[in-house]
């Protein structure tokens, strides 16, 4: 198991290496001046001397292989260069933005997982009955909602009409809150984006769980459980649910990585200062170095989510340990 686990870990390292390599190559093989993409400057406005100095500074005049190793060195030391727009180190900007995204996507993931699994299990239990069909129809309609529309709807209800919750930002600016008041302020700001993300990911969890449960219900060992006298509820929660969890965990891992990117729209709608909003700002300001760093962070998030699923999977299904 441990040996095979190392092999699996090696695969992750390999994927990470490929991602970093692509990130290194892309600005260098894309049309246009790589200087603009790497240093994040408007090349047209510079004098030839300034340009030469900058090329020397970012190392574009050195052999590609040297640049490649330099790039690796900077990635591993957390040095992503400077933002073209704000002239601050990108690592600093990301360190500032990442926690906010983690807060809302993480909270949304946990809540949607719990709700989706429970409601999905309930639906499978009542399969074919009215409550199941109502839930199924409701979830499918929910899944087809556009995220920005749902966000704006929530803002117009809870911020504009009812005035209960703030509609933008992560904290109240210049409020100097401390202790619990600060925590409350953060929570208040996180509620609407989190609810939006949650509502959007519940249907997927629900559908996966319901389908997996129905699949497992047809298995021979479910008949065995009934034959030994287990009640319907015991069959469902003692034998079906555990087996149905494995595909749900896979789905959640994919969903987590996806919501990192999906947060671009939500964070923009709520002016939430997370990674998604950063990407939006970088795209609109043509801040290439920031975009690249953000993409790398998303790649890492995808890898971590998958690694997490890989670790949980054998616990849920002991058979997969042998593979």
């Amino acid at each position, binding site marked *: 198991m441990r040996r095979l686990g190392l092999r699996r870990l090696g695969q992750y390292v390999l994927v990470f290496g490929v991602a970093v390599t692509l990130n290194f190559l892309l600005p260098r093989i894309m049309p246009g001046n790589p200087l603009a993409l790497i240093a994040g400057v408007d090349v047209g406005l510079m004098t030839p001397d300034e340009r030469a100095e900058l090329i020397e500074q970012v190392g574009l005049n050195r052999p590609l292989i040297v640049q490649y190793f330099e790039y690796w060195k900077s990635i591993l030391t957390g040095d992503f260069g400077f933002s073209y727009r704000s002239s601050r180190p990108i690592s600093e900007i990301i360190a500032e933005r990442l926690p906010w995204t983690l807060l809302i996507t993480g909270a949304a993931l946990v809540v949607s997982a719990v709700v989706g699994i429970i409601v999905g299990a309930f639906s499978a239990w009542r399969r074919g009955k009215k409550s199941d069909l109502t839930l199924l129809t409701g979830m499918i309609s929910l899944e087809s909602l556009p995220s920005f529309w749902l966000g704006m709807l929530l803002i117009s209800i809870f911020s504009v009409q009812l005035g209960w919750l703030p509609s933008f930002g992560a904290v109240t600016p210049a409020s100097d809150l401390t202790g619990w008041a600060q925590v409350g302020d953060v929570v208040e700001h996180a509620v609407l984006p989190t609810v939006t993300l949650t509502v959007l990911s519940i249907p997927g969890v629900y559908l996966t769980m319901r389908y997996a449960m129905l699949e497992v219900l047809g298995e021979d060992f479910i008949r065995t459980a009934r034959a030994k006298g287990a009640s319907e509820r015991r069959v469902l929660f003692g034998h079906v649910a555990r087996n149905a969890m494995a595909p749900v965990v896979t789905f959640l891992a994919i969903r987590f990585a996806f919501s990192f990117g999906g947060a671009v729209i939500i964070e923009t709608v709520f002016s939430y200062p997370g990674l998604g909003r950063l990407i939006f700002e970088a795209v609109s300001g043509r801040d290439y170095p920031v975009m690249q760093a953000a993409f790398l962070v998303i790649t890492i998030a995808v890898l971590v989510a998958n690694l997490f699923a890989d670790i949980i999977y054998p616990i849920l299904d*002991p058979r997969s340990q042998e593979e």
Partner: protein
Amino acid sequence: MTITYPDSTSDRTGGAGSVRAPLLDISNLAVRFETPDRDVWAVNGIDLEVGAGEVLALVGESGSGKSVSMLSVMGLVPTPPAVVSGSIRFDGQELSGLSKREFSAIRGGDIGMVFQDPMSSLNPVHPVGKQIAEAFRLHRDTNRKEAMKRAVDLLDRVGIPNAQRRARDYPHEFSGGMRQRAMIAMALVCDPKLLIADEPTTALDVTVQRQIVSLVEELKDELGMAVVWITHDLGVVAELADRVVVMYGGRVMETGDSTDVYAAASHPYTAGLLRSIPSLDTPTDAQLPEIPGTPAPILEQLVGCPFHARCPMTEGDCTGSLPDLEPVGGSGHASACLHVSSMGSAEDLWPMDVTELTESGSTSETVVTISDLKVHFPSRRKSRKNRHSYVRAVDGVDLEIKHGQTLGVVGESGCGKSTLGRALVGLVEPVAPAIQLRGEPLDTSRGLHRQKIQMIFQDPFSSMNPGMRVADIISEPMRIHGIGSAEDRLDTSLKLLAQVGLPDDAATRHPHEFSGGQRQRIAIARALAADPEVIVCDEPVSALDVSVQAQIINLLRETQDERGIALIFIAHDLAVVRHISDEIAVMYLGQVVERAKRDLIYDDPLHPYTKALLAAVPDPDPSGRGALAPPLVGDLPDPADPPAGCRFNTRCPVAVPGLCDVEVPQLREIESRRWVSCHLVDGPGGQVSEPQAGSEAWSSVSLSEPKQQNNEREEDE
């Protein structure tokens, strides 16, 4: 109409029985499945009684209603879509109409059930012991610890070594036979009065099947429980059952004491089944008698005998009136046939085709030569000893296959017989080139030898692309190898369809419209399409209904006779290959342990493993009881780590310590065309030289599971 069954406890169960009220009393049970497309009348009014401590064999093919009727007893038939009517009384209590909760109390409590496929019948995510303990806790007021102790006790009782430790293992860490033992432990954990076993050995090897039959036989005497053993194979239960009920089309065809039914079948269907099953006694020079057609689902209310379409005695009234069970002879023997009185002997009714096969196509020309074939797969299992361990699926096999002849390859699952077949058609790569076709090294590139060696697979349901039409399926090999024009290919396909006994209009239909037997005919046509010299048949009949197996075996024989094709017939069962093979190779853990002309293998087997396989073949003759050797103990060792010395020594009843577990026996040609690899076999006609001679040694050796062994011995003597 009710038949009263006199107390049928035979002398064999000795003392267990006296006159008693039936434990299970089913009357006029009917089950119908209603779906939007069609209704299936699965059970059509059956009466059935099981006495306390009695063993009832419920025999039938797929769709006979045997499983459905017993699942109804357990309340495990889903309603809807099923509609169940009739009365089921168990131990004085009426079961039909019980609420779900009330049923749960009986299921797993007083009635235990064991299912067919032990691979899928245990929950993969819970340890085995926990699953058994759960069954105990559902019915007894007890705590987790005590329930676990009970589970371990039972695992020990059903013959799981190291039960304490193995109880914590997950099902996938158990072998098939062990899983079925665990299933039996689970069914018995609450001391049930009735055990329902639904084809419990069908998915297992013959050797393991013998172990399970013996185990149940032993346990039912010990616990005094009644057993309903559902099976499609009359042979399996011959030695176990007190009474037999034969079902077909949801009706009881025949019932009676097993000695009466086996010796004097009074229904044409039972007689046909008994005649058509390949056994160790049927003559080999004639065709097996066939029951024509296939069992079909009943789609409307029965008004006549469900068997009439396949019966050689059908007369006008058979379609118009539903025959009831009428007594024939004494002691509860009854038969549901309108013409039971005019039925002649089974031999006349289901005659063997005496036109002897000419074997004209057979010459002594060698088509395929296999020398030192090795196929190794990287082992997935961790091994501390060596980092790169391999499963030696086939490990040094030499064989020749002659023109127009059949080589039977036999062994338990995991012995490498299927891998051997796959290597022949190039589906797996041998370690080094080892196969020659007519003297040339086998080249599996397209258009070359792959065309000359075709294959028929075990499962006709999954080995055909469901999206293709039958004509395309059959002509695909010709298309791949570029034979003929499109018209030629269609023409050939139609000819082949006729040859395998299917109508022309089959060509435009899809595989799902055919029964298993018909699909296997399509598979034969597909294999013939490329005009091969060799066909590898990998268990071609084991997925088929028993009444259909004879048809396919006969068809293969006829085809071979006409075309002079060499066949490699792979099977786990010596009875099936006997009828078709000229020569037989017995494999164990990737090696051939004995190889000889067919009759030598069956009349004078030399290798202890061959003897064990022969002893494990179910014999549909209850009078032969007691003559059987004890079952082979244990499971096949791990092929990635075979035992030292003779690979069979760990399970061999005559192994000599210091010789068999040290020295590797060579496959020796002890007389012309007769090979065996055993230290203890001397030579021609020679028997096991040490410690005692021959079959006597086999049945009196002490095996390594003393508890089971002792009971076994008492039974035998």
